[in-house]
């Protein structure tokens, strides 16, 4: 039996949901496959969305017209803006989710989306045909086959299979061949990918235990509250709709005894015993790793986070592990407040196949296979937000490909999404890739508060943002600009009232007339504080005055960062001819030549970020390309 659709999405996790929704919303007949319909938008690890730099990704996904931000706004149980003592570039929103609610709510969205079909089935093979235009090197997606023998004809496939490919879970000596949470692993797709010439790798990640709330003694821990004034993730969610009662988390610490137990049992850890072959992430380390790597640290933070409103399970954040169950019990019970804790679900490590993302373009399409896209953990990333970000980009580009429209690429100077994808497809990642603030060069421009101003326009062009939403964006931009102009042009004289006001706020007195913008630049001043001095102030929403304040206060820094972006774009715009033969370029060192052949960078900028390609190699390329473009007169 054969069914015909436009796009097949394999996997209904955070990448798959965004990819499927984007395609369906762009008018594609889309089918989304999952090994279990009950596991749509499952959060198999931490019960939160957002966090440092990940909060930025959620905002950007939302700006493009994605679902993650809206979904967490509907299902969060606690919300917090992190790093508020630091600069606006590193402010990051994080919300605790009710896991079951999150999953169920997302499923409802999918189920009610036009053009979208949900199908529980395991995909076992992709079907391709040779591209008649380049039969030797290119293939083209035409369909796929499920384990029950059904064939689906399609024009594009988006792989969002997460950690399910040939997955196995490890808890000490006990190995089970399943995906996360005991769900069925995908056993055949890896072989199908390999037969298409796709290079696979093996990565590892882990999750801590879930413990019974009733077995914990919170009086020995510090209660962690949410923010008093809750900021929503989505630009479409009204702030007043998310103010609600929140559920607390609790902070406690490991101690010498915990570390002792871990050290004594390291030989029973599959990671240290050499059973785990996959490479884990440095930035989300297991407690074993932390104890070994930060040997001088006397204690590590442990957060106990509720998994939802209607469960007693609590997530032991900071203590993921693959040690055997008996060691886990001893280890968790050594932590203050957890002396009598009962484990509901054991901590475990999971190993899985993923692809080498250097095989992808920035559109997340495979370089050698037309119509085949890949997103999420399968690309070697980690985290729900990273997955969602890739999902929406792969979805948009698959739809644009079918529509034969210009593909969408976001660069490093536009969004964290751009940084994430560029890093994945350009830099050699030998471990699961986690988004971090330090990875973004132009942080001050890529703030979580201005994600809509940065990239919503792109979502509009793709057709994921409505005209109404777009009009609002245009209005917002105008309001910000005119308010900045007003503050710059409104001058205050050194009148008695003004001086008195300044004294009151520990600010130095005016010597000459000064604009409101100049006053706002003073570190002790805010837009709000200046209110009484500002007679003509229009009534503006918080998100607008926030932009005004940041743009004025940090103008010098923003300008300098913009200059850096200009510099960066020069090399990005130097395109490398697609048909370049690196063997024909003299004098590139061997390592660089090999890397360039594998990565086939689109621009000199991208080439310069490939590890093993030195500035000297780039200079050679620069000269070579310039000469190629010149008439051969030498």
């Amino acid at each position, binding site marked *: 039996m054969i069914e015909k659709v436009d796009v097949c999405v394999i996997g209904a996790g955070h990448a798959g949901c965004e990819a499927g929704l984007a395609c369906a919303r762009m008018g594609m007949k889309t089918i989304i496959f999952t090994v279990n319909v009950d596991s749509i938008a499952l959060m198999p690890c931490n019960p939160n969305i957002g966090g*440092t730099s990940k909060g930025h990704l959620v905002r950007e996904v939302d700006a493009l017209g994605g679902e993650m931000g809206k979904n967490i706004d509907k299902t969060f149980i606690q919300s917090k803006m992190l*790093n508020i*003592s*630091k*600069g606006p*570039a*590193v402010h990051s929103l994080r919300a605790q989710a009710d896991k079951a609610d999150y999953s169920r709510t997302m499923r409802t969205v999918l189920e009610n989306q036009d053009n979208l079909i949900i199908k529980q089935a395991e995909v076992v093979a992709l079907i391709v045909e040779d591209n008649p235009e380049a039969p030797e090197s290119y293939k083209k997606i035409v369909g796929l086959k499920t384990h029950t023998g059904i064939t689906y004809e399609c024009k594009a496939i988006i792989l969002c299979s997460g950690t399910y490919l040939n997955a196995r879970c490890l808890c000490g000596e006990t190995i089970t061949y399943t995906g996360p949470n005991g769900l069925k692993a995908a056993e055949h797709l890896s072989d199908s990918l390999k037969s298409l010439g796709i290079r696979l790798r093996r990565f590892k990640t882990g999750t801590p235990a879930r413990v019974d709330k009733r077995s914990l003694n919170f009086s020995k821990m510090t209660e962690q509250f949410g923010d008093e004034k809750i900021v929503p993730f989505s630009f479409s969610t009204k702030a007043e709709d998310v103010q609600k009662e929140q559920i607390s988390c609790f902070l406690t610490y490991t101690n010498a005894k915990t570390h002792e137990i871990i050290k004594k049992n390291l030989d029973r850890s599959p990671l240290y015993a050499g059973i785990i072959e996959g490479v884990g992430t440095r*930035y989300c380390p297991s407690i074993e790793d932390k104890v070994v790597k*930060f040997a001088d*640290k006397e204690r*590590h*933070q442990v957060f106990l986070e509720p998994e939802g409103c209607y469960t007693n399970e609590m997530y032991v954040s900071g203590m993921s592990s693959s040690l055997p169950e008996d060691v886990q019990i001893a280890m968790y019970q050594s932590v203050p407040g957890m002396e009598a804790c009962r484990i509901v679900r054991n901590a475990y490590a999971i190993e899985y196949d993923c692809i080498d993302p250097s095989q992808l373009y920035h559109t997340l399409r495979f370089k050698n296979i037309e119509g085949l896209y890949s997103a999420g953990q399968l690309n070697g990333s980690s985290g729900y937000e990273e997955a969602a970000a890739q999902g929406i980009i792969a979805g948009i580009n698959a739809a644009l490909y079918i529509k034969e429209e210009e593909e969408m690429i976001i660069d490093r100077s536009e969004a964290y999404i751009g940084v994430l994808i560029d890093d994945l497809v350009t830099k050699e990642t030998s471990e699961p890739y986690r988004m*971090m*603030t*330090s990875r973004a*060069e132009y*942080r*001050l421009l890529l703030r979580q508060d201005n994600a809509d101003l940065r990239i919503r326009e792109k979502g509009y062009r793709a057709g994921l943002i409505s005209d109404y939403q777009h009009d609002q964006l245009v209005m917002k931009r105008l309001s910000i600009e005119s308010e900045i102009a007003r503050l710059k042009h409104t001058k205050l004289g050194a009148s008695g009232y003004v001086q008195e006001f300044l004294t009151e706020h520990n600010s130095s007195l005016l010597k000459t007339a000064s604009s409101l913008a100049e006053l706002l630049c003073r*570190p002790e001043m805010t837009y709000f504080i200046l209110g009484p001095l500002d007679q003509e102030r229009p009534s503006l929403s918080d998100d607008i005055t926030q932009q005004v304040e940041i743009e004025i206060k*940090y103008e*010098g*820094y923003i300008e*300098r*960062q913009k*200059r*850096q972006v200009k*510099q960066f774009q*020069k*090399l990005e715009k*130097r395109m490398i001819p697609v048909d370049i033969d690196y*063997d*024909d*370029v*003299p*004098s590139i*060192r061997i390592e660089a030549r090999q890397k360039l052949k594998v990565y086939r960078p689109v621009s*000199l900028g991208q080439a*310069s970020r490939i590890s093993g390609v030195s*500035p*000297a190699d*780039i*200079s*050679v390329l*620069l*000269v070579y390309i*310039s000469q190629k473009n010149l008439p051969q007169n*030498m």
Partner: protein
Amino acid sequence: MMKRETIVAPATALSESGIGIIRLSGDDAVPITGKCFSKIKDMKTHTIRYGFIMDGEEAIDEVMVSLMKSPNSYTREDVVEINCHGSIMIMNRIMNLMIKNGARLAEPGEFTKKAFLNGRIDLAEAEAVMDIIRSKSEFALRTSLNQLTGKVSDVIRLLREDIIYQVAYIESALDDPEHRSLEGYQDILQEKVTDILRRMNLLIKTSENGKILKEGIYTVIVGKPNVGKSSLLNLLVGDDRAIVTDIAGTTRDILEESVKVNGVMLNIIDTAGIRATEDTIEKIGVEKAMKYALQADLIVYVIDSSVELDENDRKIRELINGRKAIVLLNKADLDTKVDEDDIQMFLESGDKNYPHVDNSVDRPAIIRTSAKENSGFDQFSQTIWDMFIDDGINREDIFITNLRHQEALRNAYDSMLLVNQSLEAKMPEDFYTIDMMSAYEYLGMITGDQIGEDLINEIFSKFCTGK
């Protein structure tokens, strides 16, 4: 892999001279030369052979041919150098022969460009090659050589490493606040930034001093007639260029000489003696002397210690007031009528600003010399060094003399100043990295670690052919 083209160019000036050298570089340098100099086929690398360049049956010239095989050559390619007779006609014939045999006429700087592209030298080193070719003074040559041997790059890279270390620290703390704290970090960073600024400032100073050292100090010698100005100049120059007689007013015109004193170049203008004169020719000389003195970097005021100070000295005193000057008390071998104290008092009494509050201009150094006995000149040269070369800079130091490098260095310095401002304004840590990265990138432009678009072509286009 693509064959690297073989290029040819005269490596010495195309003019009548004893020897002319024609240089070839590329994968076919040996076979191309072999078509007219068959012996090259059995030459070992880094050897030289005698023979004839043949155009078919006709011998064009009697030559010495040396061969440097890849990768141990200037360009890392096979390099052949033909030492022929320095005749324009012969050199042109040999060049044409090589081009006929498959070589291509090199563009300006192409040999060095190949050395750069083949990874033998970095950008700063490549620029040094150009500076060496153009260097006029021994100092300029030495700074270029320092640059060529990578010393400048080393110093710059060290600065970059220090900057990136701090950036990395801040970033890692932002990513992992649990394990890396920024508490108290502002003080540490302030210390580092101050140190980096100090080191950059020193390099910038060397670039200013480097200019003086490279181009020389414009020096005017003034003094009453017949106090020994010309003898002094002769002593420095080492020949009797200025006419020395005992008749006052012998030097009627302005003489200019470049003299190296202790490694520093002095561009000396000897002037007619300053005195009230009726002689028209001499008068012009005196006026000129006054004019030159006003524009000079340094005024050397020569006084005859065997003659009393008079009205003319007072005129000169006005001229040197507030300027960088050295007073030479000459003819120290004769009876002394004027000594250091007299001059000190004489200078101070003429100084309207006396007593000094402003120390920005040093009082002139007074040095006792004798042109006849050749004494006092060590002190003279040391004084010049002290006056013009900033404290803390040694002759052996790295000097940044290349204009492009100076600009990049200044930009980097300005960026670090902004970091300093952010520190003073107590901005959150994540703001510091913006300007630190700018500084890092500017410094990288010096060494070529940061790729500036079109920079490479621009640099190499300034070269002369054959290098």
